């Protein structure tokens, strides 16, 4: 999992600027980590605030569920457009296209159930394969998790885990989960670092199952309310 503090609103980040920032970080990190940094930036471009991301997916094949109600064209609380449809290549998965100010980010989504609760695992996919092949070859999808609190034909409500809370717990040594703190060379404190969860899917699921109903684990500012 991988936590990234979004540097600015999506409209303030141009693609060249984002890549430039990521390459600056890449310069000081090892090969595997480079890809996560890039993925984190892509995900961060889609959402306000901070998200929690992981190397390993939060779901197993057996946990996946599919609900046709999620498909369709949606509008979020900030009037941005979201188009969700079935992914033609991976069964029981969705392709989510978020458009904001004419720019689009694409995510691969899986709905899955843990302990009776519905969650969504998201990971970015790129549609720029023809243009920047070398860039895509370095991509390893990082996963984020969000809890689906409502899913009907007319409304979808999703809330993300609170990255700030996770960061505090790591800083105060109150949570034990496999992770790495990625620090840029220019970083002055751990607050500037990026927490990347490296726990296995089993371990991630145990945490989600145990603490998934704890409201303090969610970020009230990081909600997605979709309507048709």
């Amino acid at each position, binding site marked *: 999992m991988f936590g990234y503090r979004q540097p600015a609103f999506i409209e303030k980040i141009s693609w060249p600027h984002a890549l430039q920032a990521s390459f600056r970080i890449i310069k000081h990190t090892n090969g595997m980590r480079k890809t996560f940094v890039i993925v984190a930036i892509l995900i961060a471009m889609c959402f306000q605030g901070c998200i929690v991301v992981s190397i390993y997916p939060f779901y197993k094949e057996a946990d996946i569920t599919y609900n046709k109600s999620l498909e369709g064209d949606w509008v979020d609380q900030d009037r941005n457009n979201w188009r969700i449809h079935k992914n033609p290549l991976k069964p029981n998965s969705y392709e989510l296209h978020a458009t904001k100010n004419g720019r689009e980010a694409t995510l691969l989504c899986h709905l899955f159930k843990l302990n009776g609760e519905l969650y969504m695992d998201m990971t970015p996919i790129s549609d720029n394969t023809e243009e920047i092949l070398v860039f895509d070859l370095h991509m390893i999808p990082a996963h984020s998790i969000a809890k689906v609190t409502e899913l009907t034909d007319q409304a979808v409500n999703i809330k993300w885990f609170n990255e700030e809370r996770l960061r505090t717990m790591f800083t105060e*040594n*109150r949570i034990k989960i496999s992770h790495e703190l990625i620090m840029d060379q220019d970083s002055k404190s751990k607050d500037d670092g990026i927490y990347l969860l490296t726990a296995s899917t089993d*371990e991630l699921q*145990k945490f989600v199952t145990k603490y998934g109903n704890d409201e303090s684990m969610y970020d009230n500012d990081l909600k997605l309310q979709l309507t048709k």
Partner: protein
Amino acid sequence: MRVALRSTLVYSLFWALAFVVLLSMFMTSSQMQWIDYVYTMIFMLTLMAAVEVNEGYLRRKFLKTGKYTLWILLTVVNINAFALFNHILFDTLIDYILPGYYFISYYDYFDLLKFFASFVGLGSLIGFSIEWFDLQEERQKIASLEKEKVTAEFKALVSQVNPHFLFNGLTVLYTLSLKDSRETSSAIIKLSDILRYVIYRSNDEKVSLASEAAILKDYIDLQRYRVHPTTQIDFVESFLANNAVVAPMLFLPLVENAFKHGVHGETENAFVRIALREQEGVVNFTIANNKPASVKTDVDGGIGLKNLKERLALLYPQRHSLVISETEKVFNIELQITSRSDYLDKSIQSNAG
């Protein structure tokens, strides 16, 4: 080292090592975190409890009393119980024990079983090892006590030889003095030499076979003063190894016995034939003397022979044979000693003579 102290030290070392190994296994990132120490310590406490139950109770209560099946069964139960407890502890109880901390049971039940089985097994091995060392120490103590006991018994027997020999020697001198013999002074010197040997060498663990032969010759020379001039006395010695050694004062009681009861001063045509031979660590001593019809021989009793038998049993257990036989006219003793382990001793050369 005291048993309890050794046990405490060994187990402390084991758990210190275990903590380091477990900590490195439980690290959640490339850098050691305080939470890793907390988790490792709590995890290890459950392991320690399982090992303590096994070592402190089950093994003492059931294994040492020979209830092996029950011990194995309860050990398996113990391992399962603590693996389950560990799972429940980190899954649920930890939230009450350490509120504000976020732990899960990172290992499934079967992985935990492997952990607990390994540690209980290692604990048992350490327990067995400590017990083995204790047992060896106890055996050494017993062996040492046995040796002390044997030495004490041996010294007690030797202390009986000295006055016995002195008594016989004085009898010789008494006989010579009655005859007002000029040889009395020479006999006193001989007796003095023998006494010196008996006093200073009889407490040695080993003496050279040559010095034993020399003392026999001195004794025979002394006895010649009291026997009939026609008495035939033969002494043959043959040693392949010049530095062969043997326990002191083994043969003298037999020679004494032959002169005292066989030759007996007034007997005509009396004889004593003595041979002391050594070959490749086997010492053969034979002595034959005439058997006067009027005198009861000392076959089974008498201080000398009885003393010799006890000493042989102590010094050469399973490594000697003492055969006493007699015909109508001849009393014969054959003593064979096998002392391969110690029959050569260069150091004895400097002490001999």
